[in-house]
């Protein structure tokens, strides 16, 4: 399966298993989504389970909070992560805090899917990686898969989870892995082991990171598209990097991170999002807090520049294998 098919399969499985799962968002119903992720779901489950929504992110998330309070398990889509901002109040002030402020009287077991990330000439409003705006909010979970297998397992786990989950989907990975070499043809998921996705129900647990590539020289902490870029950088530099795909960005799997950094003694954090106050800052802080006496070198961050995401300068902006590779070398030489 592609990541698109895997995500669709996750919703199909959950809609079949649980009558309380409903799927809606802009162009999600009849048309099947601008990225085809919900294709066929309305035909299979009916308009009361999968339907189109007005162009109102605040309305989509706000109604989902109300449905969650009723007892449904809504899975809603924001067409691009760049457009979640009108729903900020409902996410931060409502979904995230409902359980806390009502002492468990009401809950918001909702999943908010958002295609994110760049590398597609999406320009300023079709490329952003806003995960740090969510990880700073207590009460929500932020998740991002890097391959079809994890995408399905993590989405099912997110839907089943009783906390509100922000589910970020790197649209650059929808049809195949992407290592940052934009000049080379895309290899489809059908030619990759992680494109082998079981048809039925399975989960990838939240708060569990994956050692994507075992190594002994240094630890790369990353997620989403940058998992593939980091692997490419390791291959091209010959550095035996241990690449950890966080999968759950927050709350995260700290033991896997700490164990790896204590083993390698070096760490590079890689993400597409802008650098300052990005999630990488939290990762660097956690590593120095928990691994200080094991560190042989300063922890580096490779991130998007602190600029809006440009159109023409896409590949100067996107942290590709060259930039990541240079950071790996600097960290090894430090």
């Amino acid at each position, binding site marked *: 399966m592609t990541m698109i098919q895997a995500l669709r399969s996750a919703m199909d499985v959950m809609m079949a298993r649980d009558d309380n799962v409903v799927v809606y968002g802009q162009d999600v119903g009849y048309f099947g989504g601008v990225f085809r992720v919900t294709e066929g779901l309305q035909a299979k489950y009916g308009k009361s389970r999968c339907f189109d929504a*007005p162009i109102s992110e605040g309305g989509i998330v706000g109604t989902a909070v*109300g449905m969650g309070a009723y007892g449904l398990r809504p899975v809603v889509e924001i067409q691009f992560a760049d457009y979640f901002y009108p729903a900020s109040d409902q996410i931060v002030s409502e979904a995230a805090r409902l359980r806390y402020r009502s002492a468990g009287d009401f809950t918001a077991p909702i999943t908010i899917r958002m295609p994110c990330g760049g590398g597609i000439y999406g320009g300023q409003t079709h490329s952003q990686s806003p995960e740090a705006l969510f990880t700073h909010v207590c009460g929500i979970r932020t998740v991002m898969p890097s391959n079809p297998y994890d995408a399905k397992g993590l989405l099912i786990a997110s839907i089943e989870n009783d906390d509100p989950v922000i589910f970020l989907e790197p649209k650059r990975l929808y049809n195949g892995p992407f290592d940052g070499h934009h000049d080379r043809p895309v290899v489809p998921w059908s030619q990759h082991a992680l494109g082998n996705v079981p048809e039925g129900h399975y989960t990838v647990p939240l708060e569990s990171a994956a050692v994507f590539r075992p190594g002994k020289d240094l630890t790369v902490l990353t997620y989403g598209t940058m998992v593939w870029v980091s692997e490419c950088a390791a291959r091209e530099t010959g550095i035996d990097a241990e690449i950890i795909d966080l999968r759950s960005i927050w709350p995260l799997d700290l033991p896997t991170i700490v164990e790896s950094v204590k083993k390698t003694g070096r760490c590079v954090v890689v993400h597409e999002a802008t650098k300052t106050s990005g999630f990488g800052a939290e990762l660097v802080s956690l590593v120095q807090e928990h691994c200080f006496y094991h560190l042989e070198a300063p922890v580096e961050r490779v991130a998007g520049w602190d600029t809006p995401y440009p159109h023409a300068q896409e590949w100067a902006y996107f942290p590709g294998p060259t930039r990541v590779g240079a950071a790996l070398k600097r960290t090894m030489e430090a």
Partner: protein
Amino acid sequence: MSQTPALRLHVPEPSGRPGCTTDFSYLHVSPAGAVRKPPVDTSHFDTNDLAYSLIRVLDEDGQAAGPWVPQIEPSRLRKGLRAMMKTRIFDARMLIAQRQKKLSFYMQSLGEEAIGTAHSLALQQGDMCFPTYRQQSLLLSRDDIPMVEMICQLMSNVRDPLKGRQLPVMYSYKRAGFFSISGNLATQFIQAVGWAMASAIKGDTRIASGWIGDGATAEADFHTALTFAHVYRAPVILNVVNNQWAISSFQAIAGGEATTFAARGVGCGIASLRVDGNDFLAVYAASQWAAERARNNHGPTLIEWVTYRGGPHSTSDDPSKYRPADDWKRFPLGDPIARLKQHLIGIGEWSDAQHDQAQAELEAEVLAAQKEAESYGTLLDGHIPSAAAMFDDVYKDMPEHLRMQRQQLGV
């Protein structure tokens, strides 16, 4: 050279400021009984006139008139009167408790007691209200919500059902159909629509009731709620409590000048009513009409309740700085308690003596509840929920980082 004059920015002002008298003619008050009552399956289009007039039942003499006179037992009216009185006495008592520093903050609903009280009589068990912070009458009109528990919330003491996490008055009572109150305005208005959509998705028979003030209608979620309610024909009552004031801002600054909030509903394809919010019988009749409409799949209703915020916005507010001191006394729709009392006496179902007796009983009841709640502690004496409870319920299961932070606090 241009012949047109220089453009000027229009900034609405209330006619009455401190030291002046408000001109209430902007309310366009219709006589009691004058406004027609359409069938519950009416189209939104056919409610256009209702959105610009004012549905009233009780006239100046307290007599019920016109097509909106509800069929309601005098015993239920007496129950409603008592609930309104209880709400007002409760508010007055909690205001004193705040001044005595037994609670940090309070918000009265003085003058707006009829709206929540009569509305709740028109709803059924299982329906869900999404209130603002000024619908305490929805709770105080119920028999199954102990006042002691509400006061424990206000005092953030060891018996506070919300474990000291919420500012006073931000109650949550799922079992009473009272959604958790949020400090963020208007957010609950769209959530009410979502809840109603869920009820429709499941083929349920329960309806939702969303609440918002005149000022908060300017928030995006107000417009979002109307759009979604209309698009999905959600079984929801959308209540706009127009008490003329949003803290210091007159309702004209929220967009009420030369129009009504009910008119917004019609524009969004929603059947809309504008109702005398201080007329218990009109509130009950209109609520019942909207509830029947929703429950029979005829869709949402928007109701603008025209009332007046009799008290300060909150215990942190001094209205004498922005409006006339005697404004409420001059408000043309009067006092909801006095009006229902007059009506009940007029039909021989109440008396001054009964009223005085009820007043005394309710004062004693509230005082006793406060004393009991105080025995469980107040913010002042430090008998508050444990600091360990601060870390619970952020997530369903406590993640590792919160466990570590709780350990760091040593609790």
